[in-house]
C-alpha cells in the first residue's frame, strides 16, 4: 500500500518535471525560431540587395525567399500564438490573420494619403525642412498653363472622347460576336491587347506612327497610307500643328487596349438577357433596332455604368502610354504625367503632392459610384 503510494507520488513528480522541462523548451523554441527565421531572412535580403550572383540564382532565391518568407512568418506567429492558453489564442489569432494586411495597408495607403495631403501644403522640400505655403500649391495647380492643358486633355480627350469610344466599340463587338459562330475566336483576339503592357503597346503604335523624311520609303503603316494618298508624312502624336487633336493618336492606343475589357463585360451581360423577353417583343412586332434600344440597353444599363465609370477612373489616372509616346510634350500632358514630372524630375514635392491630391479628389466620386453599382450587381 505504502509502496504504491510512493510510486504514484514519484510518478507525479516526474511528470511535473517533464512538464516544466517541455514548458522551458517550448519557450526557448518560441524565442529561438523567430530569431533564426529573422536571421535567415535578413541574410537573404542582403544577398538579394548585393545582387552580384548569377542572374538565374538571384531570381530563384528571390522567389523562394519572398514567397517562403511570408508563409514562414505567418506559420511562426500562429505557432507561437497557439502555444498560449486557449483563451489568449482565441483573442490574438485574429490579429495574426488580419494584422499583416492592416499594417501594410496603413503603411502604403492610409498614412501616405495623410502625408501627401500635408506635403501639399509645403513648398518644394515638403516636410523635410520646407516652408508652409498654405493653399498656394493648389492655386498654382489650377492656374498653371501646363496643368490647364492636362485638365483639358484628361476631361476632354480622355473622359469625353476615349471613354465613349471604348464603350461603344466594346458593345458593338459584343453584339456582333453574340450573333456569330466565331464568337470565341473573335472575342479572344479583340481581348488580346489587354495582356500587353502599355509600354509594349506604345512600341507597337510608335511603329505604326513612324515617320520618315519625305521621299524615302515610309515604314510606318499610317504614313505609308498617308503618302500613298498624296499627303506629306506626318508625325501624328507629336504633330503640334493639329494640337490638341494629336491627342487622338494616343486615344486610339487606349481604345485598342481597353475595348476588349468593355467587350467581355458587355458580352456576359448580353447573355443574361432572357431570350423570352426579346422573343415576346419580336412577336409584338418590334424591330431589331427597337429591341436593341428599348430592351437590351435598359437591361444592361448597370453594366454600361460599371464599364464607363471603370474606364473613366482608368483614364483619369492615365500615365504610361502618354509618358512613353510623347513624354507629355506636344500638348499631350495629363494630370499623372504632370504629377510625375513635378514630383520626380523637378523634385518639387509640395506641388507634385498637390497634383496627386487633386487626382484623388477627382477619382473619389467616380469610384464611390462605381463601387455602389458593383455592389448592386453582386457580380461575385
Amino acid at each position, binding site marked *: 500500500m505504502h509502496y504504491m503510494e510512493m510510486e504514484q507520488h514519484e510518478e507525479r513528480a516526474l511528470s511535473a518535471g517533464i512538464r516544466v522541462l517541455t514548458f522551458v523548451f517550448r519557450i526557448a523554441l518560441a524565442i529561438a525560431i523567430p530569431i533564426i527565421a529573422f536571421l535567415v531572412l535578413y541574410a537573404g535580403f542582403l544577398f538579394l540587395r548585393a545582387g552580384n550572383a548569377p542572374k538565374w540564382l538571384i531570381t530563384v532565391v528571390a522567389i523562394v525567399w519572398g514567397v517562403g518568407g511570408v508563409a514562414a512568418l505567418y506559420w511562426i506567429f500562429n505557432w507561437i500564438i497557439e502555444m498560449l492558453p486557449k483563451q489568449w489564442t482565441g483573442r490574438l489569432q485574429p490579429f495574426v490573420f488580419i494584422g499583416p494586411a492592416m499594417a501594410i495597408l496603413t503603411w*502604403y495607403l492610409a498614412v501616405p494619403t495623410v502625408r501627401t495631403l500635408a506635403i501639399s501644403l509645403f513648398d518644394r522640400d515638403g516636410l523635410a525642412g520646407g516652408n508652409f505655403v498654405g493653399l498656394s500649391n493648389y492655386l498654382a495647380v489650377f492656374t498653371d498653363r501646363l496643368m490647364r492643358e492636362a485638365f483639358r486633355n484628361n476631361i476632354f480627350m480622355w473622359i469625353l472622347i476615349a471613354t465613349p469610344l471604348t464603350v461603344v466599340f466594346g458593345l458593338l463587338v459584343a453584339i456582333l460576336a453574340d450573333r456569330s459562330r466565331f464568337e470565341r475566336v473573335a472575342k479572344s483576339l479583340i481581348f488580346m491587347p489587354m495582356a500587353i503592357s502599355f509600354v509594349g503597346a506604345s512600341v507597337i503604335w510608335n511603329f505604326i506612327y513612324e515617320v520618315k523624311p519625305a521621299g524615302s520609303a515610309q515604314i510606318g503603316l499610317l504614313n505609308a497610307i498617308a503618302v500613298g494618298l498624296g499627303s506629306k508624312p506626318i508625325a501624328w502624336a507629336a504633330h503640334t500643328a493639329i494640337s490638341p487633336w494629336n491627342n487622338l493618336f494616343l486615344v486610339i492606343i487606349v481604345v485598342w487596349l481597353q475595348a476588349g475589357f468593355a467587350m467581355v463585360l458587355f458580352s456576359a451581360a448580353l447573355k443574361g438577357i432572357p431570350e423570352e423577353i426579346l422573343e415576346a417583343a419580336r412577336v409584338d412586332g418590334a424591330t431589331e433596332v427597337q429591341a436593341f434600344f428599348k430592351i437590351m440597353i435598359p437591361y444592361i444599363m448597370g453594366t454600361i455604368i460599371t464599364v464607363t465609370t471603370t474606364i473613366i477612373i482608368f483614364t483619369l489616372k492615365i500615365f504610361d502610354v502618354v509618358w512613353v509616346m510623347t513624354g507629355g510634350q506636344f500638348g499631350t500632358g495629363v494630370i499623372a504625367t504632370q504629377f510625375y514630372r513635378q514630383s520626380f524630375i523637378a523634385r518639387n514635392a509640395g506641388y507634385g503632392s498637390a497634383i496627386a491630391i487633386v487626382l484623388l479628389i477627382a477619382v473619389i466620386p467616380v469610384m464611390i459610384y462605381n463601387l455602389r453599382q458593383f455592389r448592386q450587381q453582386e457580380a461575385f
Partner: protein
Amino acid sequence: MTIKTSRMQRLRGPLFVNGILALLVLVWMIPTIGLFVSSFRERFELQTSGWWTIFPHREWVNVATIDPREQGLDATGLMEVEGVTATFEELREGVESPSGKRIQWVGNRRIGRIEVQERQWAVNWSFTLGNYKQVLQGKDFEYRHADGTVEVIPGDDFSSALFNSIAVAIPSTVIPILIAAFAAYGFAWMKFPGRRLLFILVVALLVIPLQIALVPILSDYAKLKLNGTFLAIWLAHTGFGLPLATYLLFNYISGLPRETLESAFIDGASHFTVFLKLILPLSVPALASFAIFQFLWVWNDYLVALIFLGGNPNFEVVTMRLAGIVGDRGQDWHLLTSAAFVTMLLPLAVFFSLQRYFVRGLLAGSVKG
C-alpha cells in the same frame, strides 16, 4: 444550345455580321501582326521598307546597271540614257523612260551608278532570328552592307531584365494573395472587436490612386535603404493590390458554406488548419482569377517599377528596359520590335492558357489602376 440555334436561325445576314466582325478583328490584329513580322526582318530591310512588303507587291527592280563614266556621261549637265534626257537631280529622283522603265541615279555625283529598273512582282522574304539574339545577348553585332562597309551596332541585354521581371512578378503576385486570403478569412470567419470598422477601412482604401503613395513611400524607403531592392517593389505591389484582393477574396470566402467549417471546428481543428486545409483549396477559382490579374498587372507595370527600382540599373524590369530603348535608340526598330515581343511573350502565354479565369476575375471586378 437550343437558345443558340434559335438565335442563329433569326440571323438575317450571318454573312454581314461575320463580315463586319472579321473586319474589326483584322483591324485589331494588324498592329500586333506588324510588330511580330517586323521582329523577324533584317535590320536594313526594316529601315527601308514597310513590313507589308512581305506580301506580293509591285516594286521597281534593278535589271541593268550603267556606269556613267564608261558611257562618257557628264553629271553636271544633261545626260541621255535609255531614251531619257535628264539632269543629275532629276535622275536622282528617278525618271520613267518611254518604254515604262525607271532610270535612277544611285549614289553621289562622282562615283554613283545608273540603274535601269523594271516594275515587277516582288516579296521581301528574308527573315532572321538575329534581332532576338541581339536583344537577349547584349553584345556588339557587326553588319556587312552590300557595298562592303561594316557597321557595328550594340545589342541589348534584355535577358537580365527578363529575369528581374520574373523575380519581381511572382512574389508580387503570391504575397498579396496570401496576405489578402488570411485577412479575408479573418474578416469572414473570426470574431474580434473592430471587425466591421477595419473592413470598411479596407474597402475605403480602394479609392486611393497609387500616385498618392509614391512620394511618401519613396522617402520611407530612402530612410530604410530599401530603394532599388526586390523587397521594396514586392511590398509596394502588395500594398497597392491588397484592398482589391482582400475585398474580392472576402466576397468569395464569406460565401463558402458555413456547415463545412463548423463540422471542422467540432472535430477540433484550429483556425489555421481550417484555413490551410479547407479554405485555400476551396478558394482556388477566386485565387486563380486574382493571381492572373495581379501577375499581368505587375508584369506590365511601368510606373511603380520606375520609381522604386529606377535607381538600380541592375534590377531593371522589362518594361523599364523597353522604355529605355524607346528613349535612347528609338530608330533601332530591329531591337524595339523583338524586345517588345519578348516582353509580351509571357503575358500572352498566361493570357491564352488561362483566359477563362482572367475573364472570371474581370467579371468579379478585378479592375484597378
